[in-house]
């Protein structure tokens, strides 16, 4: 038993040190591309940290987003930055990212050491045993319609958080669509390997998204994780040169994008009209209603994430010259 405890501690301490070291290197590594690769690795270690903290739900979300989306987003932005530089003949922006890191600034460093010490002290002075809201959650879990406490919080107890979160996603997409510039120059053909890979992986990704959505009711998983996996499937398709057909890029795309928030608002109005509170589901049907809401949310989240990666606004048929 002793050896086991020791191993657990060694694992956690190494993981913690690894996170700090990677975080440091992400922010100080002299090369921006390098910093991005390190950040992807950092996300991977974060997923392991969630596992160690008994948070498999978060680990799933981090795995899907850290491995599938953040890296792709950052790498695509890095590539576009280089194209912008070339077009404007302003060499050296990326080089600039290199030089400044050598300088160490004393005042911010001292200030941040004080901040870190203060925060660390505060964290350590918190009570070592606290139940938080876990008692309330488990007391009400039976009436929530699902048995995974995290899903119960996300979709039932604090459903309004999820509603507003989807509005935030939509706002981010509106922002990106309003300001993003021209489309990327024509890509090379994906080639047989990438073509085959995307054709093999996409159905599996969609299947796994549906699986995560379904098990979310009683085990780690749910709308966010499923949506992130779906978004990653979209990113893979976009990278393989696939584009939404112009018939679907107009209204149909927008309907899917708002399906989640609209379903939530409709549900909220419905529950209030039938005599309940805002998003207070009738107990008997809570499980079914949650699954319905989650399906709409998954579609919206997945589509929004893929659209965020694409950046430019997909034009519908009439807008093409």
């Amino acid at each position: 038993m002793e050896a086991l405890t020791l191993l657990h501690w060694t694992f956690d301490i190494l993981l913690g040190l690894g996170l700090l070291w990677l975080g440091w290197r992400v922010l100080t590594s002299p090369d921006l591309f390098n910093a991005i690769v390190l950040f992807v690795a950092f996300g991977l270690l974060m997923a392991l940290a969630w596992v160690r903290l008994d948070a498999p739900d978060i680990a799933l979300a981090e795995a899907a987003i850290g491995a599938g989306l953040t890296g792709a987003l950052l790498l695509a932005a890095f590539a576009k930055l280089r194209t912008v530089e070339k077009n404007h003949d302003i060499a050296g922006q990326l080089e600039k990212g290199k030089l400044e890191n050598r300088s160490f600034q004393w005042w911010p460093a001292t200030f941040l050491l004080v901040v870190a010490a203060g925060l660390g002290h505060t964290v350590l002075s918190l009570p070592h045993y606290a139940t938080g809201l876990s008692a309330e959650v488990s007391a009400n879990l039976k009436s929530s319609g699902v048995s995974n406490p995290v899903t119960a919080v996300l979709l039932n107890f604090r459903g309004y958080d999820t509603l507003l979160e989807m509005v935030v996603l939509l706002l981010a997409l509106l922002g990106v669509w309003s300001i993003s510039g021209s489309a990327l120059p024509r890509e090379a053909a994906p080639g047989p390997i990438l073509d085959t890979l995307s054709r093999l992986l996409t159905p599996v990704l969609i299947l796994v998204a549906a699986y995560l959505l379904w098990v979310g009711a009683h085990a780690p998983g749910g709308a966010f994780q499923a949506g992130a996996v779906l978004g990653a499937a979209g990113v893979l398709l976009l990278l393989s040169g696939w584009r939404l057909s112009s018939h679907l890029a107009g209204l149909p795309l927008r309907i899917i994008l708002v399906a989640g928030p609209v379903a939530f608002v409709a549900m909220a109005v419905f529950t209030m009209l039938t005599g309940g509170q805002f998003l207070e589901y009738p107990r008997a049907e809570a499980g079914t209603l949650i699954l319905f809401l989650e399906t709409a949310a998954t579609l919206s989240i997945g589509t929004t994430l893929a659209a965020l990666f694409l950046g430019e606004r997909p034009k519908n048929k009439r807008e093409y010259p």
Partner: protein
Amino acid sequence: MNPSDYLSAALMIAGAVFFLAGTLGLLRFPDVYSRLHALTKADNVGLGLVVMGLAVQAESWAVVGKLLLIWLLVLLAGASVAHLIARGALERGIKLWRR
């Protein structure tokens, strides 16, 4: 420990050795192509052995199926990525190592 435990332990330790070999290759080999070769082959075998070791201990066939599915997906991703990177490196004129 019963016999299946010994089998499982042996498989997993062998897997770890392959992972070590993959990392050594990544660190020591002279050019990107040989590092690619070391990494994708050794690590995928390592993962395969770890998966087999765990499959011996698995509580049901469904778990064995999931473990194998995970391994197959990693194999697919590893092989495709290795090919894409190697071809990309050739196209970009990264030279092969010559003694």
